[in-house]
């Protein structure tokens, strides 16, 4: 199953590639760029369904598509199966085994090269499962699969192809940094939610959230640490120039978040002071203009 939304650039190749494994079903979220037609022409069965969120959409596909086989592989439009992966899957599924789901490792290809370090690899995803044995957790973001049976890991990899230019990549970082810094400002100005230490260590999820929301943003030299983490601790340097640039762009991203946060906080304070000054002035002497405006 290939979930899609406006993937005309990829879909023909993806469908042809997915046929290595069997019948291909494209679950389209009402694309406007002709993805459906291209997918059909490439030999896929296309079903359209309005998108709500990632997990709901994929669960709908898992339940409703007219699958004929016993196993489902979920492949994104910018991913590819390698012949080695196909061979391994066919061999594993042929032998009798209680395994109901397999994790597949994803190899990133970007800026003309593969990325095997820097914390971006390995990247395990449960993508191959027995029909009925696995579903996506009902979450709106960071969806992941839960499998009822035993699971295993496959050796061979699939490919994750990012065809964006450096400019598009940076643009995305700028947008995310803008949203992220908004969150930080809200956290700072709203009720600061520093969770109780007692509770933190009982719950791994909450502990991680605490690290991400309360500790990480307050850490000095974040861009630098991010770079050190990716390039040195996670061996990014082994990827050559690609590893260097990925780490550096990520440090840039961290830097933009901090700076936007600082700038927004500064502007907010200036704005609050200005409003305060206006209110004070009005209390002292309400101007006739104000009265007229209020009257209309």
């Amino acid at each position, binding site marked *: 199953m290939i979930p899609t939304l406006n993937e005309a650039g990829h879909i023909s190749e993806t469908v042809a*590639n997915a046929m290595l494994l069997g019948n291909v079903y494209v679950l389209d979220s009402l694309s406007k760029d002709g993805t459906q037609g291209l997918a059909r022409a490439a030999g896929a069965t296309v079903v359209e369904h309005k998108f709500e969120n990632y997990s709901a959409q994929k669960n709908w596909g898992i339940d409703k598509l007219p699958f004929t086989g016993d196993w489902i592989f979920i492949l994104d439009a910018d991913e590819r*199966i390698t012949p080695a992966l196909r061979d391994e899957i066919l061999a594993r599924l042929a032998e009798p085994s209680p395994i109901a789901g397999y994790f597949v490792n994803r190899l990133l*290809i970007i800026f003309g*090269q593969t990325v095997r370090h820097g914390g971006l690899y390995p990247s395990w995803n449960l993508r191959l499962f027995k029909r009925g044995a696995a579903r996506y957790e009902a979450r709106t973001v960071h969806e992941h699969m839960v499998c009822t049976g035993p699971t295993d890991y496959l050796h061979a990899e699939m490919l994750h192809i990012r065809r964006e230019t*450096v400019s598009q990549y*940076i643009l995305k970082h700028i947008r995310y940094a803008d949203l992220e810094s908004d969150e930080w400002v809200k956290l700072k100005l709203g009720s600061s939610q520093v969770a109780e230490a007692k509770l933190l260590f009982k719950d791994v999820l909450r502990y991680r959230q605490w690290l991400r929301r309360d500790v990480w943003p307050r850490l000095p030299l974040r861009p630098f640490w991010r770079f050190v983490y990716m390039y040195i601790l996670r061996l990014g340097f082994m990827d050559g120039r690609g590893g260097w640039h990925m780490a550096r762009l990520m440090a840039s991203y961290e830097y933009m978040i901090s700076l936007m946060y600082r700038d927004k906080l500064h502007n907010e304070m200036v704005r609050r002071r200005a409003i305060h000054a206006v209110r004070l002035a009005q209390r002292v002497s309400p101007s006739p203009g104000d009265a007229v405006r209020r009257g209309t």
Partner: protein
Amino acid sequence: MLDSGSTDRTVEIAHEMGATVHHNPFVSFGQQRNWAIDHIACRHQWHFHLDADERFTPALLKEIAHEIGPNGLRSQNSAYLVPSKMIFLGKWLRYAGGYPAYQMRLFHRERCRFIDFGHGQREDTTGPVARLRQPYEHYNFSKGLYDWFIKHNRYSDQESAQAIAVRAEPKFKIGEVWSNDPIVRRRALKEMSFYVRGRSLWRFVDMYIRRGGWLDGSAGFHYCVMISSYEYWTELKIREREGNWLTQTNLLSERMARENI
């Protein structure tokens, strides 16, 4: 106020606050400024063009009043260059911002015209041009850093394209770097920079150390890092264009999807 077709509440707010609002669709900076000189019926001969993200200071107003005199007849100059203070995070970037960064903003309507040049404009005056001592304030980042980064992502696209064009057809002469004409010199230096590696580092050293950005405190540091990031983006995009990274990605992924590597 001269508006070139704002779609937000700009015009409404300006009206409300008592400004006279004029409209002219934007063609270029030079053309827009000339239109203002020709079509807006001003009572006075001396005009000051203030951008929306700039502010007068009382000291500047006083100096202007003193220079041109009560009826605007005292000064024989055509125009004045005015220093501008770049403000970032509430602080004046005296060194990193390249102060005084003179702009010709105060002029006599009959003695000055604007000519388009590059993505800005130049001035054409009939008489002498003097300098004011008092600066106005320039809030370069008033639309937020998001805007600044988006703009510089775009500029670095253009810069890298230009770098590739220059490298494909080098026509600059090394001697021009020492030319007496500042425009020729700047252009030669810029073209030369397209051959240099590590431009982000050089730019940072130039701004933070040579021009004294460190004297501007943390705002100065951050501004230098921002400019340096922009240079890094440019550098990265030059590499991307040279190495045809997109083609490489496609070739590599097609090959890996076909055979085992």
